[in-house]
């Protein structure tokens, strides 16, 4: 399935989830699909840390639900993150692994072992139980509701098999925020949703 179409389909399914994107294509695609400037943290150039960042958030704010996107390029850099995620087992976190079999942010350079990497099997081998995989928009539209149950223990791992960005899609706008602006927009949103105090003072 097309990367951006997949993200548009997910955006249609989104209710109140807070989102963390990874470097490169997932940030571009989510920005194109949503133009969300408050409830999404575009964690640019984190090289494999988007789901750890989201895990910290999800631990801190159990009353909220979090979606974290990560490309398989980032995943290859730090697959051991799944051990930490499994250990934390946060029920309010969904980890979306966006598999396009390339380093999308760097001109679609190939990943090591890209033809054999079996991400759902890797996740299951680390003890994750709620592992899903989508290869088409139709399947995503039809079955995504299976993710919704709130009384299921443990965090969720979803593999999205997508096509790499085309040359035209590589030109999609990057989320335009300076870092501190994004921090405050996002943090104020979290504060408003939960009545917590992120920055030490409330507006």
């Amino acid at each position, binding site marked *: 399935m097309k990367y951006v179409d997949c993200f548009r389909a997910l955006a249609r399914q989104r209710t109140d989830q807070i989102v*963390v994107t990874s470097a490169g294509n997932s940030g571009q695609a989510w920005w194109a699909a949503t133009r969300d400037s408050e409830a999404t*943290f575009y*964690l*640019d*150039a*984190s*090289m*494999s*840390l*988007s*789901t*750890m*960042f*989201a*895990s*910290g*958030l*999800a*631990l*801190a*704010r159990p009353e909220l639900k979090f979606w974290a996107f990560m490309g398989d390029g980032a995943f290859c850099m*730090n697959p*051991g*993150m799944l*051990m*930490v995620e499994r*250990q*934390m087992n946060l029920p309010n976190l969904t980890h979306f692994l966006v598999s396009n079999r390339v380093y999308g942010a760097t001109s679609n350079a190939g990943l090591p072992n890209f033809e054999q990497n079996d991400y759902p099997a890797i996740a299951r081998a680390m003890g994750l139980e709620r592992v899903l995989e989508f290869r088409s928009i139709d399947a995503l539209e039809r079955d995504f509701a299976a993710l919704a149950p709130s009384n299921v223990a443990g965090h969720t791992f979803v593999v999205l098999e997508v096509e790499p960005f085309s040359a035209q899609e590589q030109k999609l706008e990057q989320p335009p925020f300076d*870092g*501190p602006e*994004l*921090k405050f927009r*996002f*943090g104020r949103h*979290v*504060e408003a949703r*939960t009545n*917590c*105090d*992120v920055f*030490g003072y409330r507006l």
Partner: protein
Amino acid sequence: MNDKPSSAVAPRIAEELAKCDVRLVASLPDNWLMDLIEAIDRDRRFTHVRVNREESAIGLCSGAYMGALGSAALMGASGFMTVIYAITKINYTYEIPLFLLLTLRGGVGDHHKHHISNGLYLRPVLDAINMPYRIIDQPSDISQISRCYHHTRTFARPMAVLLTRNLLRGSHA
């Protein structure tokens, strides 16, 4: 010189962290830190997360900050040397506070030759990225930990405390 065993120091450091409202501690081991890691792990005031690599601790603690949860990352000097990219990209770009407790390896009294590089380069690397630090060498210095933690919140960037062998193992260990 301090000759108290680390078993007396570790609970005091844990207490200092708790006083700052630190509730999440992400750790990777260093032999000098084992008493402290075990003290944190036993202490129900903390959620202790053993992470797979030091960068994961940076991500985890940074996210926790954005959710208003106090946190600290605990690691050895060698591990810290692997996280410069993560810190500069996340904590400097977005100005997200981060509090680190590191071992000051490679100094006088550290018998391990494989830490010579940390003795040579840890502090120059901290200086190179303009990251403030304080050396905690004596039990009487432990109260500096909360001041440093609060400084990260004012400074909106990372700061480290460097825990010495003298503090963690005693001068005669």
